[in-house]
């Protein structure tokens, strides 16, 4: 194929690229946030009741196996949205985030040492305070690890929505392909990769900042 590299396209379309970038972030990050919020109580329930765990963990595995294009296409059928509704991308992304994080949260909560919870109970912590101020903070490193994978995946998955007309930067990829404009495609791909890496680094940083005790322990001999 004869490829066009119309570099002047780039400065002429800064506004368009910025709009696609904003849409991409909105499409990708909102579901990850919702997924995080939903998976914490689910993980709590899975930790508390083995029966819930036995249902949730395999169900998460099954949902995570379903290809994104299939799930994006089926959302209108399942919840009655229109075909070009942003929810069609956001609902699958939230489902994948939950499927990934429920396991992380459950594992992290199960890994909290028994003597820590016993000590907190002994000094008079009730169950809700124990969970919010002792167990959940101790689970943060594992949750952040899951969140990083979920976020980076979401940045890439969002572009698949472009195949059915919703996709932020993904739409620049499909438009560039149709118009034989390699510049448009390269710009979109590069922006997606850079955004993913920047957000990944930010999450790593925030995760370290809010768990200062993980760094203290490395210095102290135990």
């Amino acid at each position: 194929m004869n490829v066009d590299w119309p570099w002047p396209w780039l400065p002429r379309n800064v506004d368009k690229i910025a709009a696609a970038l904003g849409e991409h972030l909105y499409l990708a990050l909102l579901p990850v946030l919702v997924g995080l919020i939903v998976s914490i109580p689910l993980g709590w329930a899975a930790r508390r009741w083995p029966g819930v765990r036995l249902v949730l963990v395999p169900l998460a595995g099954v949902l995570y196996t379903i290809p994104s294009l299939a799930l994006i296409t089926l959302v209108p059928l399942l919840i009655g949205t229109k075909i070009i509704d942003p929810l069609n991308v956001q609902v699958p992304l939230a489902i994948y985030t939950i499927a990934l994080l429920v396991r992380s949260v459950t594992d992290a909560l199960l890994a909290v040492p028994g003597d820590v919870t016993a000590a907190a109970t002994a000094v008079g912590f009730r169950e809700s305070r124990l969970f919010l101020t002792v167990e959940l903070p101790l689970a943060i490193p594992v949750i952040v690890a899951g969140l990083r994978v979920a976020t980076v995946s979401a940045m890439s998955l969002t572009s698949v929505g472009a195949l059915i007309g919703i996709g932020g930067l993904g739409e620049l990829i499909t438009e560039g392909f149709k118009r034989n404009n390699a510049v448009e495609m390269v710009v979109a791909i590069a922006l997606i990769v850079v955004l993913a890496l920047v957000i990944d680094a930010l999450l790593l940083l925030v995760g370290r900042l809010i768990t200062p005790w993980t760094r203290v322990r490395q210095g102290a001999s135990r």
Partner: protein
Amino acid sequence: MDPREAGGEPVNSTLTWLFDPDHWSGPTGIPARILEHLGYTALTVLVAAAIAIPLGAVIGHTGRGTFLIAGLSNGLRALPELGLLTLLVLLTYVGLLPVVISLVVLALPPILAGTYAGIRNVDRAVVDAARGMGMRGGAVLWRVELPNALPLILGGLRSATLQVIATATIAAYVALGGLGRFVIDGNNAGAGSPDGYPQMAAGAIVIAVLALVVEGVLELVQRLVVSPGLRDTATRRRVARIWRRPTPDLVSKST
């Protein structure tokens, strides 16, 4: 493009499309598309395995080039496969080769990581025992490390296969076949057409079912081919995993 404009209830029209006998025969029927899809997947995974298993085994055995494993999986995780595939087709030509190459790029990291981790995780005492019995490096790798690493190698192959099945749907966008055809064609047909949304949703159902069936089959294969000596610990681990799945095996999803 409201699915409800497509005439009648979307669930009904989807099921009607899905079970229409006309859509189950001929070179554009569902069985033919499934075969095409599995063909792309098999070709990709074979090529990727031929590259990644030897490479991962050598890196795991010698301990040299470890940076390659982490670098590849971190670097490629953020790459949008839709972009890679369409750009490669645009830069070369419309055909199987650029599509398979971009799918191989996607399939390499999990197989490489699985093989490397499998070899590295082999009990050092077992490797020492093999050396003590007089085995040389090559024999240790072939007869001790690789069989012991099989569960993790197969795990890597499994996640690679599922990633490729999911991503091969994009092949239809660059004018190839496979199950993505139904979704892309349905989307192009537009609302109101009986081959519009119902075709898309029917195709999506077939894609989802195919992915789940392949996942089940591979899990079965994994159980059958792993040495009985390893199987005990593997099943014990599996039982433990239902209760407490280890988190390090977080698999990213790009399609």
